[in-house]
């Protein structure tokens, strides 16, 4: 009997049909908030060498969570048309999520996951790589990378292995790094010049830095500070932690995770910089109160007490940027992202410059890098991989990283032409940090990165506001971190 024929549709049949449809809808709604994933090969099951999906006939949609504002998402809308030339029937949507730091962004993505509304793809920085990988939120890309090895060779040949290693967890690759930032030392050139100081050499030391900081800090006749020599933002990346790194230490004990040979053999066989690399990083027992860390924090407090350094800033660093661009701050640790930021704040290309972080016991830098993960709940994982692959390409990266709001992971992107409109003059420093300081490593970012950062910033703040001595603050930090690590063991 034809249900949709008026002739046969009486009230009883209509009610039966309506109740049936409602029941099916209810079951579907209860089972998942998202359409069921395609039964086609997932990354874990995809046979190596399997053909990529036919682009023209592929249909679907991808929702991408992005750390940024609506304007950041709008800027990335330019990424969609070239992708749609390959995949005309795929709808791509960027969902911007704002926050003062990565921790806040991850919190919001986890909230989306809790609400069964997780995106298909999420932009994740070092701070969250192990959180997403370790908690099974993200999909390992190994099988896709192996399958599309030929397509991916050009990308890996252009990207420093330290960045790739930072995106690995327990031997598997989770992201294709798109951008990175090393906390180098930024200078306000006019503040430097008015203090009679030159751009420092690459191997400048902590003592030279101290001299620069003292000479650039200026007070008026009433004792009111006109300009500070140095300031930093109280957060995990680029705070006082770079001083810990150059002092030969870390917040946590670190070791390379085993595995990853498949990737190094496939893509970095002849690259010396890849020698000795593993399958990611293990950040183990905390060592917050290590003597080298105490020495670094003591130095920060000393600068503060001497009036050389400004009080630390909480939040995203916008206040600090205002002081720097306004000529009230001489030096601060920042990454390549600041070139675009300072340009947007009205600073001329020659009004600021950048150099490596000063040498102490070493000149080992820290970095943070970011890329896209495919969420395990992604509706169409194959399609998500195609988008990731597209994003790692030259065309997409030039769209995504237009404006120097971050440092591209592709070294071929680093050029005088690229940095001419924004500065800085010594733009080579950004990538040279990786090339010339091969021991440079990612910030410590274990799966517990979120609560760990809260503990780190809390006690760093207490030391810098002189509510606690540096030693007491680091001892308390160590105690809290040990308690956090005890939960890991459970």
């Amino acid at each position, binding site marked *: 009997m034809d249900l949709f024929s008026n002739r046969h549709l009486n009230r009883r049949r209509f009610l039966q049909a309506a109740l049936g449809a409602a029941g099916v809808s209810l079951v579907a709604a209860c089972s998942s908030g998202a359409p069921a994933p395609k039964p086609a090969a997932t990354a874990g099951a995809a046979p190596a060498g399997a053909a990529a999906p036919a682009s023209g006939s592929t249909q679907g949609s991808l929702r991408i969570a992005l750390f940024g504002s609506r304007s950041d998402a709008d800027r990335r809308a330019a990424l969609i048309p070239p992708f749609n030339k390959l995949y005309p029937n795929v709808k791509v949507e960027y969902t911007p999520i704002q926050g*003062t730091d990565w*921790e806040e962004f991850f*919190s*919001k993505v*986890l*909230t989306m*996951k*809790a609400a069964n509304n997780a995106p298909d793809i999420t932009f994740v920085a070092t701070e969250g790589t192990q959180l997403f990988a370790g*908690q*099974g*939120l993200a999909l390992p890309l190994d099988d896709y990378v192996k399958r599309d090895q030929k397509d991916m060779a050009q990308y890996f040949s252009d990207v420093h292995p330290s960045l790739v290693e930072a995106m690995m967890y327990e031997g598997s690759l989770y992201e294709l790094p798109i951008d990175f930032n090393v906390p180098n030392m930024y200078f306000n050139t006019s503040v430097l010049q008015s203090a009679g100081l030159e751009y420092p050499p690459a191997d400048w030391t902590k003592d030279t830095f101290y001299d620069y900081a003292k000479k650039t800090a200026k007070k008026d006749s*009433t004792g*009111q*500070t006109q300009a*500070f020599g140095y300031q930093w933002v*109280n957060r995990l990346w680029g705070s006082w932690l770079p001083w810990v790194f150059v002092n030969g230490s870390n917040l946590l004990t670190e070791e390379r995770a085993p595995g990853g040979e498949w990737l190094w053999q496939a893509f970095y066989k002849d690259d010396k910089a890849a020698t000795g690399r593993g399958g990611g990083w293990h950040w183990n027992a905390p060592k917050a109160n290590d003597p080298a860390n105490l020495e670094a924090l003591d130095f920060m407090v000393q600068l503060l007490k001497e009036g050389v350094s*400004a*009080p630390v800033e*909480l*939040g995203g660093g*916008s*206040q600090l940027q*205002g*002081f720097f661009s306004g000529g*009230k701050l001489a030096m601060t640790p920042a990454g390549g992202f600041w070139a675009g930021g300072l340009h947007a704040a009205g600073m001329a290309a020659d009004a600021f410059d950048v150099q490596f972080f000063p040498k102490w016991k070493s000149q080992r830098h820290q970095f943070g890098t970011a890329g896209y993960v495919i969420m395990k709940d992604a509706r169409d994982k194959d399609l998500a991989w195609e988008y990731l692959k597209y994003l790692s390409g030259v065309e997409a990266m030039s769209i995504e990283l237009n404006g120097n709001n971050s440092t591209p992971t592709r070294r071929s992107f680093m050029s005088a032409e690229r940095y001419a409109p924004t500065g800085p003059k010594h733009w080579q420093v950004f990538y040279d940090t990786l090339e010339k300081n091969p021991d440079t490593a990612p910030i410590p970012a274990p799966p517990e990165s*979120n*609560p760990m950062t*809260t503990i780190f*910033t*809390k*006690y760093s*703040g*207490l030391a*810098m*506001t002189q*509510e*606690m001595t540096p030693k007491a603050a680091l001892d308390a930090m160590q105690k809290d971190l040990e308690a956090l690590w005890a939960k890991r063991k459970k």
Partner: protein
Amino acid sequence: MTTVRVTAAPARQAGPRGWLMEDSLAGMARRRALLGYVFLLPTLLGILIFTAGPVIVSLGLSLFEWNVFDPPVFMALDNYQRFFSDSRILTGFTNTAKMVSLAVVIEMILAFALALGVQRTVRPALRYFFRSAYFLPLLTSAATISIVMAYMFHSQFGVINYYLGLVGVPRIPWLEQAQWALISVVLVYVWHRLGFTFIVFSGGLGNLPKEILEAADVDGATGWRRLWYIVLPMLSPSILFAAVTAIISGLQIFDEPFVMVKGGPGDATRTVVMLIYESAFKNIELGYAAAIAAMLFVVILLVTVIQFRISKALVFYQ
């Protein structure tokens, strides 16, 4: 012979429709009541879905351990046991209590003084301007206000210290020292919320019966005596309402300490709601966060009940 025609009373129709449509006073009352419920329905549904529902789910969640990644594990009252042994909870409640005490006192006194000033000295046409002006901050997001205020309170380059410096006040470490950070947060919070309490008091003062005030004038009650014995008692329902809402709102303070100082220095401005946020979204312990939220709910309930009990003796209803 006269025939008397007796008309039977309209028979009550069977079923609920008849009960409702009955042509009598009782039927009319029922129809009115039903209409009332129909009008109430959207609000009731809203409360059930968006308030009562989440509250019940949250209470249920407080009995589980849930990290989002794995299925929830039933823990009975473990989260509540942890609540009572967690030293940070005491810190959070102590900070919140300090902020609420300070904020409510400043807010009530300032709002009352402003409302009285505007009521007594400003021409009626200008009152609307002042009411709008004082209410304006309330329409701005607390996060935006907090960001701007963090600049203003900056110890070295902030305008507040600049102007204080002009009159010889030494530089105050507003956001850098524990006690000052708490005061800064409270000042910003009060500045943001003041307009609401101001409007409540303005409304209350505007509705005071003129005949009583005139009688007080005739009897020679002026100045403080008139304020203390006439105005304040008659304004007491408004004061109670303002105090209850101020305390409930204060116990939930989050935006200002979070944006301005991230709960610092140390834990100096870490409030209970910040602890809920951190437990839920930094430590990913949603069950424990729900338990803290449930306990905060109990505290707010207790404080409100106590306030109403006290108010029975102090509030004067006409």
